[in-house]
């Protein structure tokens, strides 16, 4: 009996010390979870590391916006008419185009990225504060979409039957909505009702909340479909059956047995949603239905700058570049995460 066991543990009949080391090593290799493998791959991926650093910097800028703006000394909402020497910043006779700087941008050692035409607000400060709006709306919308999509998809796939039919039809309907058009039409409507619905007047805090909600509400259906498909196959697997035969209730099976297996999918979908919501927020604010003055938002800045494209193109360039770099960094990281979780999929 004892002999049999020890033989089985060291099939090659090596010394006890050797075989102990062998199994310990083997255990370590076997024991690596998908998450650990993916993490190791990500750390080796130079693009992933670079884009993660860029994203961390952007998040840092958003968190420490008030501090950063203190260094430069111009609050984002302050109308600057004169510089430190008392010379005017804006050419009042010319419609308020900034004086001096590259291409009429008013860039100087005081105003690093120039000033806004007409109002003279500092472009750098507004850009820094715009990061907050972009990231907050995108994160909020993503969380709502992921939570709704996961829960509804899991319920639909796990319980099947009538529940599934109803929820699947709901997904069909939401996917048939002209998404951008509807978000565009609905955001001001809900924001207008702020006082009646939530007791909050129509301000930009409310508008950010509404944007998150509307984006999230129209974003869950696609994820729910994917989750539903995966749960349909996961629920037939042996470990689920085992849990059920031990008397586990549906809530336990769904959240403790099935949910962990969905994490790679959710992670990939999250990295896809964040940049698309950053773009959506900018687009909606650009169209005038998202964030309003005086809060700084990249989309609003681009809209405002489009009126000055001939006289001050740099005013358009800065928020445009900020938006592009942010979206690119998130997309690159998203691609790397997908590759790390499923190397077979390839960088496609």
């Amino acid at each position: 009996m004892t002999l049999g066991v020890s033989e089985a543990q060291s099939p090659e009949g090596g010394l006890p010390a050797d075989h102990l080391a062998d199994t310990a090593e083997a255990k370590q290799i076997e024991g690596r979870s998908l998450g650990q493998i993916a993490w190791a791959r990500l750390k080796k991926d130079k693009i992933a590391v670079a884009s993660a650093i860029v994203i961390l910097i952007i998040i840092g800028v958003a968190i420490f916006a008030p501090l950063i703006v203190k260094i430069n000394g111009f609050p984002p909402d302050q109308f600057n008419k004169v510089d430190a020497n008392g010379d005017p910043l804006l050419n009042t006779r010319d419609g308020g185009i900034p004086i001096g700087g590259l291409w009429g941008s008013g860039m100087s050692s005081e105003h690093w990225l120039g000033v806004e035409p007409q109002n003279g607000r500092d472009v750098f400060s507004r850009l820094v504060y715009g990061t907050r709006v972009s990231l907050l709306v995108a994160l909020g919308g993503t969380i709502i979409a992921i939570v709704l999509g996961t829960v509804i998809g899991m319920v639909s796939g796990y319980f099947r039957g009538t529940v599934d039919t109803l929820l699947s039809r709901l997904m069909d309907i939401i996917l048939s909505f002209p998404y951008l058009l509807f978000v565009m039409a609905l955001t001001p409507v809900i924001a207008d009702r702020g006082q009646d619905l939530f007791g909050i007047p129509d301000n930009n805090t409310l508008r950010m909340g509404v944007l998150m909600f509307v984006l999230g509400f129209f974003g869950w259906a696609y994820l729910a479909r994917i989750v539903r498909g995966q749960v349909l196959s996961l629920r037939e697997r042996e470990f689920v059956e085992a849990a059920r035969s031990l008397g586990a209730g549906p809530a336990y099976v769904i959240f403790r047995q099935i949910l962990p297996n969905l994490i790679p999918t959710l992670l990939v979908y999250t990295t896809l949603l964040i940049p698309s919501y950053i773009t959506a927020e900018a687009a909606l604010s650009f169209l005038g239905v998202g964030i309003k003055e005086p809060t700084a938002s990249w989309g609003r800045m681009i809209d405002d700058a489009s009126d000055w494209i001939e006289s001050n193109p740099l005013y358009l360039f800065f928020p445009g570049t900020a938006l592009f770099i942010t979206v690119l960094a998130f997309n690159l990281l998203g691609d790397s995460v997908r590759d790390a979780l499923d190397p077979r999929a390839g960088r496609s």
Partner: protein
Amino acid sequence: MGRYLIRRLLQTVLILWVISAITFFLFWVTPANPALLICGKNCNTETIAQVNATYGFDDPLIVQYGTYMKGLVNPGGRMIGTEGSERKCPWPCFGESYQNGVPVWDSISEAFPATFWLATGAAVLWLFFGVLLGLLAALRKGKWLDKLSVGIALFGVSFPTIVFGYLLLFTFIVKLNWIPFPDTANAALFTVGPAKWLQFYILPWITLALVFAALYTRLTRANMIDTMNEDYIRTARAKGLGEGTVVFKHGLRAALTPIVTIFGLDLGGLLGGAVITEQIFSITGLGKLSIDSVLSNDLPAIMGVVLFAAVFVVVANIIVDILYAFIDPRVRLS
């Protein structure tokens, strides 16, 4: 096939009805007093009461919804106004604009051609370049051409339309002066001639096509790489078929099948209005109509555009499903 079609059509009607109901009730519960919007500066209690009676704003919401739906379903349209001063709103009646009293359907049909040309032109561009780049990348997998295509696609996906559109506008219109500044009037092919028409649409087409071209490059590449690893491709080569036949007749045809689905849905979505591109280049299409009506609280116009756009999405869904069965013999409609 026939039964499938009927079932799908019924489903479509149901989905459209649900969308219309949701849209109606969501938008009609707004605080904006429609009567106040319509009479504008001349508002007093009397005129407001008159406007309310004319448009039926005093009726319960459900009655208003019934009236609205009647205008959409009844081939004869419906009447607007109180007895004695009624006017006909011909089918399909989406009501009248609060801003200028024009029937919404007239605004929609006036704006549609611009959106149609914008969307279809861009679709041709992105389909051609997306599939071409994706195909080349897949055939030269791992080589520099592949890396270049993948890089271009990644940049394209990450270029927000508002940034890319203004970049084009600034470069070609403001700096290089190759193209005159877009005026708000839409260029119709038959009135301005092909040269001016192309000049009007070329930048909007590129702007709109970029993101889609990038997505289609990625998709074609991934599908094509999968397909070329299939057994039947090896069989085709073993039979001694030329590489051209293998790639185009056996490989590309199979790889493009999923792309047909997505293409239909994308084009269907855009026919309801390409809001951002239209806004950047001042094209007075459906997208511009919708954003203008949203900004001016013009509920009938918003409703009209949303429903009109939803029809395209839903119809595109059916067409794609049917097409799919023709392209891919493994799919059986049932």
